[in-house]
C-alpha cells in the first residue's frame, strides 16, 4: 500500500481525446466524476419532482427545500432582480454540494479538491459579473471601484485597492473551497495511516489504533459539515458578487 496522502488526488487519463503540441485533452477520472455528479443531480431532481404532489414526499421535500433555500439566499443578497441568476447559483450550489459529498465516500475522487475545477467555477462567476455588469450598466459599472465620499487625494489609491480587491475575489472564492477540501481529505488520510501503522505494531498497537480511529469518525462528521458549509459559502458569495453586477455603486 502507498503511504501517500496526496495519492487520492491523482489524475488518471482514461482516453486521450485531442493532442496538440503542448496541450492534451483527455477524458480523466475527474471528468468521469463530474459527469457522474451532474447525472446524480439530474436524476435526483427529476425523480424528486416527478410526482408533483401537493404534500411532498421525502425526495420532493428535499428538492423543494434546496430550491427555497437558494431562492431565499439569492433574494436576500441580490434582491428580486437577482433572481435572473437563480439558475446559475442553484446549479453551482448543487454541483459543489454533490461534488463535496460524493468526495467523502471512500475510494471516490474529489473534483473540488482540484484548484483548476474551483478556479473554473470562480472564473465563471466573476466573468458573469463583469459581462452582465458592463452589458447592463455600461461604464457605470466602473463606479463599483470608486468609493463615495472620499477626499480627492485618496481616491487614486482607493481605486487601485478596490481593483485589486475585486481581482482577488475569484482567487479567494476558488482558494477557499479548494483548500478546505484538500486539507480535510489529507487529514482524513493521515489519520487513516496512523490506524494502519499502529495496528501493525502488535497487540498494544491495536488499543492505540482506536484513538486515531475515533478521530477519523469525528473528522468524517466534521468534513460532512465542511462540505455542505463550503457549498453554501460558495453560493452566498456568488450571489453577493452578482449583487455588485446588478447594483454597482450609487
Amino acid at each position, binding site marked *: 500500500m502507498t503511504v501517500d496522502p496526496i495519492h487520492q488526488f491523482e489524475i488518471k487519463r482514461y482516453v486521450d481525446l485531442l493532442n496538440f503540441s503542448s496541450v492534451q485533452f483527455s477524458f480523466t477520472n475527474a471528468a468521469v466524476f463530474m459527469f457522474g455528479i451532474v447525472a446524480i443531480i439530474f436524476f435526483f431532481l427529476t425523480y424528486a419532482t416527478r410526482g*408533483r*404532489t*401537493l*404534500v411532498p414526499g421525502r425526495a420532493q421535500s428535499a428538492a423543494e427545500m434546496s430550491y427555497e433555500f437558494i431562492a431565499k439566499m439569492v*433574494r*436576500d*443578497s*441580490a*434582491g*428580486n432582480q*437577482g433572481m435572473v441568476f437563480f439558475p446559475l447559483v442553484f446549479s453551482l450550489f448543487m454541483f459543489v454540494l454533490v461534488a463535496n459529498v460524493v468526495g467523502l465516500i471512500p475510494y471516490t475522487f474529489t473534483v473540488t479538491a482540484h484548484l483548476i475545477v474551483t478556479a473554473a467555477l470562480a472564473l465563471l462567476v466573476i466573468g458573469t459579473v463583469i459581462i452582465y455588469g458592463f452589458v447592463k450598466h455600461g461604464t457605470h459599472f466602473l*463606479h*463599483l*471601484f*470608486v*468609493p*463615495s*465620499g472620499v477626499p480627492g487625494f485618496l481616491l487614486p*489609491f482607493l481605486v*487601485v*485597492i*478596490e481593483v*485589486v*480587491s475585486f*481581482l*482577488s*475575489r475569484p*482567487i*479567494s472564492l476558488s*482558494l*477557499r473551497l479548494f*483548500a*478546505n477540501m484538500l486539507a480535510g481529505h489529507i487529514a482524513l488520510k493521515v489519520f487513516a495511516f496512523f490506524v494502519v501503522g499502529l495496528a501493525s505494531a502488535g497487540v498494544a498497537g491495536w488499543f492505540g489504533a482506536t484513538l486515531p480511529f475515533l478521530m477519523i469518525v469525528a473528522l468524517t462528521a466534521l468534513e460532512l*459539515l*465542511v462540505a455542505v*458549509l*463550503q457549498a*453554501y*459559502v460558495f453560493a*452566498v458569495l456568488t450571489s*453577493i458578487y452578482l*449583487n455588485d453586477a*446588478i*447594483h*454597482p*455603486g*450609487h
Partner: protein
Amino acid sequence: MSGPDDTSAGGKSGPDGAGSSRPSDTELSARLERLNTSLGHVRAKAEVPAPKEQDTSSKSGVALAFRLGAEFVSGVLVGSLIGYGIDRFFSITPWGLIVFTLVGFAAGVTNMLRASGEGRKIGPGKS
C-alpha cells in the same frame, strides 16, 4: 396551506382529484379567493425591496476563520502577482512588486473587513 378546508384536497389526488366534486363552484371560487389573498400576503412578505448586504451571520467560527484567511491571502497574492507582472512587463524590478504587494495587503485587509461585516460602512459606494 394549513386551513381547515384543505382536507378535501388530499396529497395524492393532484389536480385531477376534483372529479368527485363535493364542494360546489361557489365554494371553490370563494376558497380560491381566500387562497389568493393569503398568497398575496406571503408574496408581499417575500418582496425584498433593497438588497441587504447581509452576510452569513450564522456560521461557525472555524468557517469564518477560513473565509477571512482566504480573503486576506488572496488579496496579497493578487497584489504580488500584479506587481510581478508589471515588473516583467516594464522591467522595473523590484518596484512593482514592492508597491503592489503593499496594495495587495491593503486590498486583503479591505476584503477581510468587508467579509466580516465591519466594512459595510466603508464598502464601495455603499454609502
